């Protein structure tokens, strides 16, 4: 999204390397990732606070055993999603390695693989959301589990948190596609490795968030 131009540039120079000796866009993206870290932390923390409260409420009523909203989240699908995202991180880094060695067919293969895996993750999440919705977990301050209604913010915090993660994955897929076409069209551009590295950084970060969500939300 950031502008690629740089007032210091003169044609022929290595693009965008400045007084710190780093690429400006990469520095900006790392700082943005830092900002996003706090964004997702706030979302996850909200979820943890309300889940602890729901658990305490249920435990007080002796309902925790059979009404815990965690029972919605079977870990089979999530494990598959986590594996998909992890695999896409691997294909992403392989794509980057291929750009550095200028092996364009390899690069195209691995980047396409990343796009496919990313899309699979999004579709998996769409499936998960519709599934949960039909099971009774909705974007509402209560959920219905096996016919019984429980007042809890679990659904709200869960959908907002994972929804924003899914949105980030979706934007990442769009960005990957854009980079794919740009590199295909301008195969000799010296900017290509950095373009791929940037989208890669973003992509790994999105994977990193899922590592946290997988542990803090699904497993614990």
């Amino acid at each position, binding site marked *: 999204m950031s502008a690629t131009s740089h007032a210091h540039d003169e044609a022929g120079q290595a693009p965008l390397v400045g007084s*710190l*000796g780093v690429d400006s866009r990469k*520095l900006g993206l790392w700082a943005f990732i830092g900002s996003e870290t706090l964004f997702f932390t706030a979302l996850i923390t909200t979820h943890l606070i309300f889940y602890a409260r729901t658990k305490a409420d249920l435990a007080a009523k002796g309902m925790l055993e059979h009404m815990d909203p965690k029972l919605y989240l079977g870990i089979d699908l999530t494990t598959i999603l986590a594996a998909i995202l992890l695999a896409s991180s691997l294909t992403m880094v392989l794509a980057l390695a291929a750009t550095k060695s200028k092996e364009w067919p390899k690069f195209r293969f691995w980047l396409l693989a990343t796009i496919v895996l990313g899309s699979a993750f999004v579709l998996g999440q769409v499936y998960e959301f519709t599934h949960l919705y039909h099971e009774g977990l909705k974007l509402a301050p209560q959920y219905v589990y096996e016919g019984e209604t429980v007042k809890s913010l679990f659904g709200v915090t869960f959908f907002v948190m994972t929804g924003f993660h899914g949105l980030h994955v979706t934007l990442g897929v769009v960005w990957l596609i854009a980079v794919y076409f740009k590199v295909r069209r301008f195969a000799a551009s010296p900017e290509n490795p950095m373009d791929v590295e940037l989208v890669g950084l973003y992509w790994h970060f999105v*994977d990193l968030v899922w590592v946290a969500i*997988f542990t803090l939300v699904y*497993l614990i």
Partner: protein
Amino acid sequence: MAEHATHDQHAESHESHSTRFYWMIGAILAVITAVEVAIFLVKDTIGHELFLAILFILSIAKGAGVVMYFMHLRGDARIFQLVFIVPFLLAVTLCLGFLTIFSHHVGIAG
């Protein structure tokens, strides 16, 4: 400019790993995930504290693997490490601070 140039080279040249290396890291991360799921399945037999401890260690290892090797933060310019680690610490502060404040207590203003 000269002073900067030396700086530049150091900063830009993170080790390029072989594709085999990435496959290895990917495999390790996959194994960690598998172990996580495995201990999740047996969590009732190993006790809650142990489960949490193992899970946290594994997740941190997994996250560190992604950040250090896939995002190449290990060996990359110091500024990137700074720009990532500072907000990460703030995020930990935020999370632990909030969870502490929202743990059970009596509402008395000081």
